[in-house]
């Protein structure tokens, strides 16, 4: 091909592209990376702009705040009990994590290391639960957990407005993923270690708690973090199982929504409350990024 075919600006660009494909490739990479990070961060930046703008200037705003009102973060906590909602969220998530890890460790160990008939079908059964939408469980669970159902003449306890009203549905939602993650980790521990412990005279359960569990600590941590994030970000049962007041164990969902429904114009408060609500998760993501990546892929790719 002669150089004449590449005349004009477009032609020059085409020529450059062909002769320097590595450079163009690098440029594409950086443009892609920067745009993904900007798309990701922009909504967070907008929350920050709204939060620090004084409420009398919350109209037709630009992309840069004109005044800074840092006090808004203190106001959200002092005048509205945001910290109370966040405390409830963290406590309920922690209880769910403990329940799921305790039950899930036993099952994960069995699925990962013990040979028993019906293992495949039981794992499929777990998958079936995570397949059904939350709404398919809603009405009977609501009935069961609010005391409107009676078993042999005794009504079930009314757990509406208590932490347990949420812990039970969350446990049901989180157990399958806990077990998938733990099964993957347990099955990766070499058989020799467990055999050695058994030869030394440790009991079966002793080997599980003293040898296998410590070795699979990274797996347990991963599962715990995934369950914690899952519960902290959950919406559906958090929204249905309380009446929305923090004394009645309402969680972050209501801490945020109450501004939208009761204080409709307080946009700076909504933004500040959202930013504060993100902090616990942001900290977790920063310190445990590797675990989250591993947990998500292990749980997602199990099948």
């Amino acid at each position, binding site marked *: 091909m002669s150089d004449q075919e590449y005349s004009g600006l477009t032609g020059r660009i085409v020529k450059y592209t062909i002769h320097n494909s590595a450079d163009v490739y690098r440029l594409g990479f950086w443009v892609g990376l920067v745009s993904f990070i900007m798309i990701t961060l922009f909504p967070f930046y*907008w929350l920050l702009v709204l939060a620090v703008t004084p409420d009398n200037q919350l109209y037709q705003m630009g992309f840069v705040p004109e005044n800074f009102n840092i006090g808004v973060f203190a106001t959200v906590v002092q005048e509205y009990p945001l910290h109370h909602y966040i405390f409830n969220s963290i406590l309920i998530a922690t209880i769910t994590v403990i329940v799921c890890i305790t039950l899930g460790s036993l099952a994960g160990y069995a699925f990962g290391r013990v040979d028993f008939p019906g293992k495949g079908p039981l794992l499929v059964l777990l998958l079936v639960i995570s397949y059904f939408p939350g709404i398919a469980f809603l009405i009977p669970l609501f009935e069961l957990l609010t005391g409107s159902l009676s078993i042999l003449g005794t009504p079930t306890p009314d757990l509406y407005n208590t932490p347990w009203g949420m812990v039970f549905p969350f446990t049901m939602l989180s157990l399958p993923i806990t077990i998938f993650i733990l099964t993957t980790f347990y099955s990766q521990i070499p058989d020799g270690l467990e055999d050695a412990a058994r030869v030394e005279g440790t009991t079966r359960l002793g080997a599980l708690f003293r040898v296998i569990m410590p070795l699979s600590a990274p797996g347990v941590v991963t599962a715990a973090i995934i369950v914690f994030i899952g519960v902290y970000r959950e919406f559906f049962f958090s929204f249905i199982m309380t009446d929305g007041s923090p004394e009645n164990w309402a969680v972050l969902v209501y801490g945020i929504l109450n501004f939208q429904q009761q204080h409709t114009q307080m946009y700076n408060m909504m933004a500040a409350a959202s930013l504060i609500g993100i902090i616990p998760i942001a900290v977790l*993501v920063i310190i445990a990024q590797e675990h989250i990546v591993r947990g998500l892929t292990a749980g997602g790719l199990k099948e």
Partner: protein
Amino acid sequence: MKQKVQQAVSPIFLRIEQLDEAKYGFLLVSPVFLVLSVLAFYPLVRTLYFSLQDDDLTGMHPIGEFVGLENYVQILSGDANAILTSPFFDLQAPFSSALIVTLLITGVSVAIGTLMGLGMAIILNKEFKGRRYARTIVILPWSIPIVIQGMMFFLLFQPSLSPFVEPLANLGVFSDNPLINSQDSTIIVILIDIWRKIPFIALIIMAGIASIDRNLYDVAEVAGATKWQQFRLITLPQIKPVLFIGMIFYTISSMKIYGIVEASAGCSTVPTLTCLVVQTFRQQRWATASAIAFITALVIAVIIMVYVVRYRESTNE
């Protein structure tokens, strides 16, 4: 005290010690399945049972007499639309009928989100300085509370605040107040869903790319294949199984979409299937709500089957 406890439990430990492998396995999984039978299997069966009964709006319990598949027939034929807060399926009003809105959100979100997730996975898989920080940043949208995901875009499209709404309205893309317009709000919900799911699908695809044998690329390099050819002939076929699983999870999750709708435009503006179930449940129509919940599960099952069949066809070629 400690000794007493040990004495009391030691026969139990001995018993466990003597169990054969199969019984030991069953013993270890039994607590989980006991809990799940109360909290998951029983509710599923009972929802199915409710869906076969009549609504009873006057009695003590909102469940009336056995009517068989009547609820399903009423919902699917459109006869139930009159009692629902928004129609289940109505071609005359696509943006207010639950099934169409949900399928539209899922279809557009999965298509765009998967493509962008693929792009993000390829970029984040490269070695570069600060990759750890980049990964940390991009996981954030997925991990933050659902209510905040919705709130962010609610604030981003508030007409009195947002610098976007007016220019977009002038271009004719949106109306003056997009959050009360069903069509505009559906687009906003799709945007939220894509924004928060890209990291999820990207992470799954990254796991697939990481497991590809590097030698394949070296061979391709020697053979003179361009980057695009390497992607099309090596990367894409190798990550197909992972991509397929990721898309199934993405689809299931988008079909259940609810929280971001409630926190942004509201269920009356964007009536997704889950919105419709919750609203019907709140009207004390438990039987109808249960039937819609099961129809939703069936629709998801059909979509997954289509995926599986298409996947089988493409791998058999």
